[in-house]
């Protein structure tokens, strides 16, 4: 091979910041081709994807509304991924969090206590954590692979939600349609910015970013997570319990996903519907890696991901581009971002060394 990829002795700080820009440039270039092929002015299409969705204060706030569940789930998942615990069932944990959290309102709709919402948030976290606790139990007790168990439990959670919303949780005044009654004020997330949908859940997401950052950098458990992830044997010698880390990371990720679910139902959705999340739990996995499993990176990655969704909607309205284009476009952005990350730890070099026969 003429071109050689070589590991850097130390990761490149310049590239940490430069690669997203390189990825963006590559996206712009290839989108020109994509949009030309579709017969759309590429400049305008890119404008619709990246700029138009942020026109106004309201639209800007929507970016954070959309990013909130992604951020919460991705932060939770990233801690597990650092420890090589592959929870890919955040979607199910999000759903369970929403169910358990909103059960308080559903069964006590008359409550006007100021403690209702805090209790719902805590119950949401417990619900998500409990659902993630199942893979943790099966992993530590039976060695069952958590990728598979957490994924299977996603479908179970979604179907369970469907049972509730089509059955006992239906709005009594709702002609048997599958949705709950709308939440009362005391069960609603407070709005942060009047005239928008920016809600308290976004603050929780910010808190999660900061908290995870502190935890990974400053605490013993964060240290253990990193050691177990990078060198499980060393962790074993140091006396860190692998099982404990499995439990901790899954419960942590599940709790944050649960909070994400609850803040969706008692934030922008305002009632329990048969579908609570359009796949946030799965998208969050991509977000976690885009953010290089670092809380700050995840913060920006979730905003970027949210932007492509908003951009896709804008492009549909203003340019009539089908939603399929959003998928292709998102795929491209992600490919370039993931690919250009190679430059952080590696460098390309012309292979000048003469080939030596093995």
């Amino acid at each position, binding site marked *: 091979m003429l071109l050689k990829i070589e590991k850097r002795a130390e990761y490149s700080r310049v590239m940490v910041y430069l690669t997203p*820009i390189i990825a*963006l*440039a590559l996206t*712009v270039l290839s989108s020109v081709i994509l949009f030309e092929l579709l017969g759309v*002015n590429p*400049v*305008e299409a*890119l*404008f*619709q994807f*990246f*700029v*138009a969705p942020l026109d*106004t204060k*309201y*639209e800007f706030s*929507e970016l954070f*509304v*959309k990013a909130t569940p992604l951020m919460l789930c991705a932060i939770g998942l990233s801690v597990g991924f650092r420890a090589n615990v592959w929870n890919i069932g955040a979607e199910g944990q999000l759903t369970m969090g929403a169910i358990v959290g909103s059960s308080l309102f559903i069964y006590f709709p008359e409550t006007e206590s100021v403690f209702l919402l805090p209790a719902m948030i805590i119950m949401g976290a417990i619900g998500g954590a409990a659902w993630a606790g199942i893979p943790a139990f099966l992993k530590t007790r039976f060695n069952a692979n958590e990728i598979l168990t957490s994924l299977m439990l996603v479908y179970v959670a979604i*179907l369970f939600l*469907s049972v509730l919303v*089509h*059955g006992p949780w239906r709005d009594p005044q709702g*002609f*048997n*349609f*599958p*949705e709950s009654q*709308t939440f009362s004020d005391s069960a609603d997330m407070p709005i942060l910015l009047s005239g928008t*949908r920016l809600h308290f859940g976004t603050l929780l997401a910010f808190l999660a970013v900061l908290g995870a950052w502190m935890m990974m950098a400053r605490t013993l458990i964060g240290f253990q997570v990193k050691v177990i992830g990078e060198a499980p044997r060393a962790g074993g010698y140091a006396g860190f319990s692998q099982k404990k880390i499995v439990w901790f990371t899954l419960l942590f990720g599940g709790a944050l996903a649960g909070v994400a679910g609850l803040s*969706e139902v008692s*934030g*922008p*959705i*305002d*009632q329990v*519907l*048969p*579908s*609570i*999340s*359009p796949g946030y739990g799965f998208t969050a996995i991509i977000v976690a890696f885009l953010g290089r499993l670092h809380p700050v990176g995840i913060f920006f990655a979730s905003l970027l991901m949210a932007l492509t*969704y*908003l951009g896709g*909607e*804008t492009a*549909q*309205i*203003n340019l*009539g581009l*089908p*939603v*399929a284009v959003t998928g292709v476009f998102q795929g491209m952005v992600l490919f370039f971002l993931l690919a250009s990350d190679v430059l952080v730890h590696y460098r390309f070099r012309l292979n000048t060394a003469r080939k030596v026969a093995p």
Partner: protein
Amino acid sequence: MKLKHISSLFGAAAIAAGMLMGSAASAEDKIGFIYVGPVGDHGWTYRHDVGRQAVQKEFGDKVKTTFVESVKEGPDSERVIRQMAADGHKLIFTTSFGFMNPTLKVAKQFPDVKFEHATGYKRADNVSTYSSRFYEGRYVVGKIAGKMTKSNVIGYVGSFPIPEVVRGINAMTLAARSVNPNVTVKVAWVSTWYDPGKEGDAAKALIDQGADVILQHTDSPAPLQVAESRGVWAVGQASDMSKFAPKAQLTAIVDNWDGYYVARTKAVLDGTWKSEDTWGGLKSGMVELAPYNSAIPADVVALAEETRKGIEDGSIVPFAGPFNKQDGSVGAAAGEALDDGVLLGMNWYVEGVEGQLPK
């Protein structure tokens, strides 16, 4: 250098797009459509998009129709509806039940924009609701199915046990048993509106349990394809699906939103739009029947046509008594008929449907 270049590119883009959008908004009225599925689902959403195209065709340069597809019934729908409203749309159709509350929320903030919500029950000064009495079509189909079945078992592929679907099952069952009292109806719920493989499997299961006419309240033509290959009868859903089952399709219950969409758009353009509740059936043309299969005997076709005309002129009412509920209690007494309120929340089977309705 690179950065500068990109920013100048965006700058140019902003100007270009700004000009384009500015000119577009002033020349024509924008009519928006929000779909729950992809326009390529060949079912529910596809028919709404056909309606949108009818509007575009009817009014040509006077309107610009826009749509957003695959909008999830969660927090996204409110944003998309709001974005359309803020973007200067005059009239916005939100075409799924789950868009009800988001539509009302946005409508409150944009009193000058008109909204039309499909299949819901909440209205406001600037929010109308509309739906189709698909059950009228299913009643006609029931007469055909009752006559065509030899095994006296009719299979029904259901999506979710909501009133809309239950109403269809009941109407079909009443009609089938009115011409053939031995008919029983088996239902298989697939817990999805759209999964061709699973819908097809459900049809197979029903056929294996003796059904020789298959109806469906899911979106894909898979159950018809199964019926075609197994040599039993089937009824299409949402569109004429005879292409997928030329031999098996008896007829199809076709959603036709074209007329309604054109009329409501015209009302907005004329300034005569009012908040209304439209629940149109065969008479209004919102529900149509695809051409009858030529294999249906003439007397059965005559019976079906008689039923259809009867429903249109009001002489036949599908949910007129006397009939019993599944548990043997009275559904409607002789000389009575269920009113729309009961129909809207229907959550019980009529006599003749097997199995218990999942609650």
